[in-house]
């Protein structure tokens, strides 16, 4: 956390400029207003300790005044239930290190539903900040025949009220002027008067805090402590659960005694106050006009047609990711391969530097960049789906699938995209506002069978299943492997929610925003930011881990290993080809490509076997023996920690074929088929092949995912994810091998 605090502090917001917080309910066009006010002068980051996006930018109010605008997450009230909402409360009460208290809060409200939006405005004004009310979406209100008397509202509330339409740029100049005025001549908003019992109850809480030398709270914070049963403020004051329950219950009893229900008194009184304020401010048409959005909604939320449209849209999105990202990924792969070759030739005289640069650095950077196309394309679509308002409909359609295991409909898109790659999936979980659901989604996302597992499946199915059982069974096994992760993931989600988070079901109330034309610039901006975020934070971790794994597989590298391997090779090669050892030696001396190629592969294999990684593989092999893995497969498992598909090139090396093999290599398939244990029995039987596949289906051999999980959920959760998946994969592999062998013996 301290590092994050530091980085926020270093973000160096100019203290001389005005601090403006942009606050509002979700879907009020707040972000559009933010984009319009700041243009390209904006940056993103995270709030310390939580993965809530911190978006801020600079805006000129007039020739002499600049403002730093912070776009706060959308929230309905200050009863901080989620991490997003808590950030809003923390910013308004000055609890965010490195962030000044805002001078002005701009509350963005939806003109089509103004009363409800004023609820939050009233809460915010209570914190004492100078408030400007921006009534956005005026065009939508006008088209529905709703008219708003902004002048009257401004007089009644005693704050500036600016009607605007941010998407068309209407009212922004007025807003800038109002911000400046609210700063220079702050006014106190007319707000509701709390009944005596509420004052007494908050006073009781204040005194209890003072008596126990707990942290001081501001009057609005005391209100939150009183009204919100699971208030985030409770964590901050340092009361034990028992102390908290005792004092808060006592304060709430005081409300009960005055015939006030502590759960409903706040909204009841606030809305009663607002109803008075709003009298004659909004004029609705006598006959409600149906909006275009309603007929679209009838189709998109339809029990049958809604699903068809949803399936078609998802298919379109993922088809684009597959077909669009594929060529880009091939190009990236090719470029880095080419770069490796060029650089490799230049460094030929320094074999260690060559290997570090080519196999460590270039391959490491390539392994990071390769994920970029998928991330960019997915986030472009996620932005569009969110901005149009469709994402809420998708969550509504899919919710039931996930509600039983403690998740909600918003988990669908991140989990579906994890079938392509868990990295954009884990990053995409940001769209889930409930923090526990989000964390659970992040933890199970890597169980979805991503495209990196495919080469492993293809190799093993092609080598062992298909030749014996035919293509129908092979396809069924391939399908089963893809299903396995999903089938296991959902019960695990339930388990995490019950055992770790101790929640049964979290409520899922979702407002369906009006359909809007998305802001393309905003979508591109968010896409670019996600990509940059991935490269900068996850990328550095991935690169560092690539180099560690490279070093483990490179060192130690003694000359004697190569010399010994050459002697062995000459004898074997001579015997196999009915040549004299001297003749083989001559061929090597003469640089015969066929012989030296094979020799190099053998030396490479010997080096790997002698390396720290090879030794580790041999040392932990007994652990994998119950799953039927030999040391070569075990080394493959260890070496594929950076990425699952690495097992194929590692097997290539351990089978003395060199790293340049792929999942359809005849040589590799042949070598694996003819591999034998010392007692002569084959290494790879059907149960072993299945066990290896199950292991790779369930394990988390992907450090890019691990790095992204660390970034999104914290390193503790990343470590937890890695551990539970590895244990799960081991049990899965052992179970598969043991049951498979047992069935094999029965048959």
């Amino acid at each position: 956390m301290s590092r994050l605090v530091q980085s926020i502090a270093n973000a160096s917001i100019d203290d001389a400029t005005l601090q403006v917080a942009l606050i509002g309910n979700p879907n009020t066009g707040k972000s559009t207003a933010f984009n319009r006010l700041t243009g390209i002068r904006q940056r993103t980051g995270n709030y310390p300790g939580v993965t809530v996006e911190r978006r801020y930018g600079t805006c000129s109010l007039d020739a002499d005044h600049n403002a730093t605008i912070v776009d706060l997450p959308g929230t309905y009230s200050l009863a901080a239930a989620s991490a997003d909402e808590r950030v809003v409360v923390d910013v308004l009460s000055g609890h965010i290190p490195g962030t000044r208290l805002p001078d002005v809060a701009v509350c963005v409200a939806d003109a089509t539903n103004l009363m409800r939006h004023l609820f939050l405005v009233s809460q915010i004004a209570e914190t004492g900040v100078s408030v400007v009310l921006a009534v956005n979406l005026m065009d939508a209100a006008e088209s529905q025949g709703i008219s708003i008397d902004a002048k009257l509202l401004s007089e009644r509330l005693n704050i500036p009220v600016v009607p605007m339409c941010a998407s068309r740029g209407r009212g922004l100049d007025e807003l800038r002027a109002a911000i400046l005025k609210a700063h220079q001549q702050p006014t106190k908003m007319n707000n509701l008067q709390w009944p005596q019992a509420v004052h007494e109850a908050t006073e009781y809480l204040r005194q209890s805090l003072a008596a126990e030398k707990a942290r001081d709270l501001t009057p609005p914070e005391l209100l939150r402590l009183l009204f919100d049963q699971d208030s985030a403020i409770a964590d901050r004051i340092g009361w034990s659960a028992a102390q908290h329950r005792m004092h808060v219950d006592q304060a709430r009893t005081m409300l009960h005694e005055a015939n006030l229900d502590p759960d409903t008194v706040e909204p009841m009184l606030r809305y009663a106050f607002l109803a008075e304020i709003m009298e004659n401010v909004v004029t609705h048409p006598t006959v409600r006009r149906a909006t275009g959005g309603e007929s679209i909604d009838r189709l998109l939320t339809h029990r049958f047609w809604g699903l068809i449209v949803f399936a078609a849209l998802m298919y379109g999105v993922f088809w684009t990711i597959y077909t669009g990202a594929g060529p880009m990924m091939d190009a990236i792969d090719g470029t880095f391969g080419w770069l490796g070759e060029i650089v490799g030739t230049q460094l030929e005289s320094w074999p260690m530097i060559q290997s570090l640069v080519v196999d460590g650095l270039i391959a490491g950077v390539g392994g990071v960049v390769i994920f970029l196309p998928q991330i960019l394309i997915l986030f472009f679509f996620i932005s569009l789906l969110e901005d149009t308002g469709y994402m809420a409909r998708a969550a509504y359609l899919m919710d039931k699938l996930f509600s039983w295991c403690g998740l909600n409909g918003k988990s669908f898109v991140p989990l579906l995209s994890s079938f392509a790659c868990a990295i954009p999936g884990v990053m995409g979980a940001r769209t889930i506002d409930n923090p526990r659901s989000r964390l659970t989604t992040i933890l199970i996302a890597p169980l979805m069978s991503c495209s990196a597992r495919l080469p492993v499946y293809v190799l093993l199915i092609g080598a062992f299943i298909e030749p014996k059982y035919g293509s129908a069974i092979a396809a069924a096994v391939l399908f089963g492997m893809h299903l396995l992760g999903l089938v296991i993931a959902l019960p695990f989600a339930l388990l995490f929610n019950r055992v770790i988070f101790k929640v049964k079901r979290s409520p899922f109330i979702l407002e369906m925003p009006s359909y809007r034309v998305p802001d393309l610039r905003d979508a591109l901006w968010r896409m670019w930011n996600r990509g940059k975020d991935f490269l900068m934070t996850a990328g550095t971790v991935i690169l560092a881990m690539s180099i560690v794994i490279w070093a483990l597989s490179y060192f130690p590298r003694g000359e004697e290993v190569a010399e010994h391997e050459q002697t062995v090779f000459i004898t074997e090669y001579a015997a196999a080809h009915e040549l004299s050892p001297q003749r083989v030696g001559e061929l090597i001396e003469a640089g015969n490509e066929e012989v030296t190629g094979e020799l190099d592969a053998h030396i490479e294999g010997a080096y790997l076997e002698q390396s720290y990684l090879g030794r580790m593989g041999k040392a932990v092999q007994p652990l994998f023996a119950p799953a039927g893995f030999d040391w070569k497969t075990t080394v493959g498992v260890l070496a594929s920690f950076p990425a699952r598909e690495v097992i194929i090139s590692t097997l290539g090396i351990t089978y003395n074929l060199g790293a340049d093999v792929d999942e359809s290599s005849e040589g590799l398939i042949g070598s694996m088929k003819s591999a034998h244990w010392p007692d002569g029995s084959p290494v790879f039987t059907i149960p072993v092949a299945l066990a290896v596949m199950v292991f790779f289906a369930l394990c988390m051999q992907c450090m890019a995912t691990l790095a992204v999980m660390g970034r999104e959920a914290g390193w503790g959760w990343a470590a937890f994810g890695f551990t539970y998946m590895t244990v799960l994969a081991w049990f899965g592999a052992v179970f598969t091998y043991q049951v498979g062998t047992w069935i094999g013996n029965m048959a």
Partner: protein
Amino acid sequence: MTTLNLMKKNQSGRIASIRAAGSLTGRLMAMGLLPGAKVQVLGVAPLGDPMLVQLEGCRMSLRRSEAESLTIEE
């Protein structure tokens, strides 16, 4: 009198009272589900839950378990 979760598509009524566990009552009310507010059921998701509800000025998706806490009068 009925509860929202028992209402059929296109049925409408007014919220009489709200009684949910913990902080949910306050949340529902903050979102505009107040006593006296008009509600209409627009439909139910393909798998039978959640339901889609029209309120004055906005539409919302609620799970049946949450809708159960809203008493509705015709």
